[in-house]
């Protein structure tokens, strides 16, 4: 097995060791949102035709959970290694920047997808969710977790202290994921807010993902796919540049 595989494996073991906090807790949180919002808003919010609000909510909550956990995994692992200093043992290994990137991103994607899958498995007990296209669902789950895992690598390298990372999470990741149409269809928003929502890259992740379940979406699924793929490419180039130049990692 290659060195990158071992780094990937280490990163996966790392979050499974604290699965209570990294897997179970986010699944429970998503289910609490589901219970509360579906109870309060069922029948009050207009979403897609023929789709009950509770079913509509599930893909959004899944994607929000995927996004937040993929980001949390790569960013927290990197900042922790940097702050404790044990990152030197990864940096002195004969791993290329592409291998480092792949290992951190792939492990974070595993966490995102596992947690997202957990939300789905428990939610389908509660309400019936259709599956329109499994390929689209999986495609967006992979894309979404990859985009946020990459963003996590960037933030983890950039941040020097835990509170800088927390700021990144609280002021960028959280608002963008909450305002991306998890709880509503943006067609129910006033025109100005619809336009603003189109500038939020997370909106395309959730909209495309939702299409995989209902076969309906706010914007064409191809557009969502193109926007997120483009975001992934740009972020990956930035992360690879940082790793290749040892930005904030090698003095």
């Amino acid at each position: 097995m290659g060195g990158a595989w071992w780094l990937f494996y280490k990163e996966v073991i790392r979050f499974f060791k604290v699965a209570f906090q990294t897997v179970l807790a986010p699944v429970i949180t998503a289910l609490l949102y589901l219970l509360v919002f579906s109870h309060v808003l069922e029948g009050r919010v207009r979403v897609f035709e023929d789709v009950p609000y509770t079913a509509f909510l599930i893909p959004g909550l899944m994607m929000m959970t995927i996004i937040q956990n993929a980001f949390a995994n790569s960013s927290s692992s990197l900042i922790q290694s940097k702050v404790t200093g044990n990152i030197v043992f990864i940096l002195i290994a004969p791993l290329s920047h592409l291998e480092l990137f792949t290992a951190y991103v792939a492990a974070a994607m595993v966490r995102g997808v596992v947690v997202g899958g957990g939300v789905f498995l428990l939610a389908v007990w509660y309400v019936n969710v259709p599956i329109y296209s499994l390929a689209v669902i999986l495609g967006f789950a992979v894309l979404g977790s990859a985009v946020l895992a990459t963003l996590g690598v960037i933030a983890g390298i950039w941040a020097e202290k835990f509170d800088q990372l927390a700021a990144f999470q609280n002021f960028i990741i959280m608002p963008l994921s909450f305002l991306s149409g998890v709880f509503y269809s943006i067609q129910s928003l006033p025109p100005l807010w619809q336009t603003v929502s189109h500038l939020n890259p997370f909106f395309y992740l959730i909209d495309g993902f939702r299409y995989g379940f209902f076969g309906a979406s706010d914007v064409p699924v191809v557009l969502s796919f193109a926007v997120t793929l483009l975001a992934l490419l740009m972020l990956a180039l930035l992360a690879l540049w940082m790793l290749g130049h040892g930005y904030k990692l090698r003095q």
Partner: protein
Amino acid sequence: MYSGPAVAIREVHKRYGDIHALKGVDFTIDQGEFFGLLGPNGAGKSTLINALAGLVRLDAGQMTVLGHDVVTGYRDSRRLLGVVPQELVYDPFFRVRETLRFQAGYFGLGREVETWIDELLDALNLADRATANMRALSGGMKRRVLIGQALVHKPPVVVLDEPTAGVDVELRQQLWGFIRRLHAEGHTIVLTTHYLEDAEELCDRIAIVDHGELVALDTKRDLLARGISRTLHVYSEQKAPKVPDKLRDKVKRIHDYCVELRLERDRDSIVEVLDALRDAGTRVCDLRVEDDDLEDVFVQLTGRSRQ
């Protein structure tokens, strides 16, 4: 088999902002050497070692490990190099054995490395702590795990940055025993240490760096012979022996019945010094001459004590 130097350092420069941490350092370390890298705090020792390991990026110059450039040939140079960092770093998520296994994995090693990990755990006296979490280890144990991590891919060149800092005397002796064994088995050892006695005891050749420059590089014997002075211990019959004014500036210290004088090798005559003491009323009953040790040479070369 490559027969060139284990480590070649060519005109390397490193700046951290305004600090010029390495100013054209240039030397080589032969295969199989036990090499000491000494210098006061902030001299640039860690910077040099970290550049070798790829943790620091040089502004100019070149470094190779067994002929492989540490930048362009980093995969090979890193496989051939084991580095024990100065800081006591560990990953609190993992146990001792896991830590070593993952580290071996990063070097692409498969199941065949497991027996070597067992041997390492034994040699480092960690076998009974193999399943302990890293957090639960004492400082000395963590230090030994660091050494294990550096050796897990069996590198022929091993660099230890202050491996005995904060380690008690007994463990220090144990570690040196282990490192001597590695050297006897053919590893090239490069060591920085705060304890000059250790360097004096262990190293064949010693480099002294100061302010980012190489100020001396010699075999231990020749370096010690450079000592330009020696110390004369004069024991007198009275407490607090009297010293004439003309010897004042040679006095290192006076304690109880003894006065220690620093004499320049070629200029000062022991006989004249003893005459002067007798004239001042000191009755000499015994004396001892001591050559400079590495500590004295170090102080003369760098102009400061290592503390």
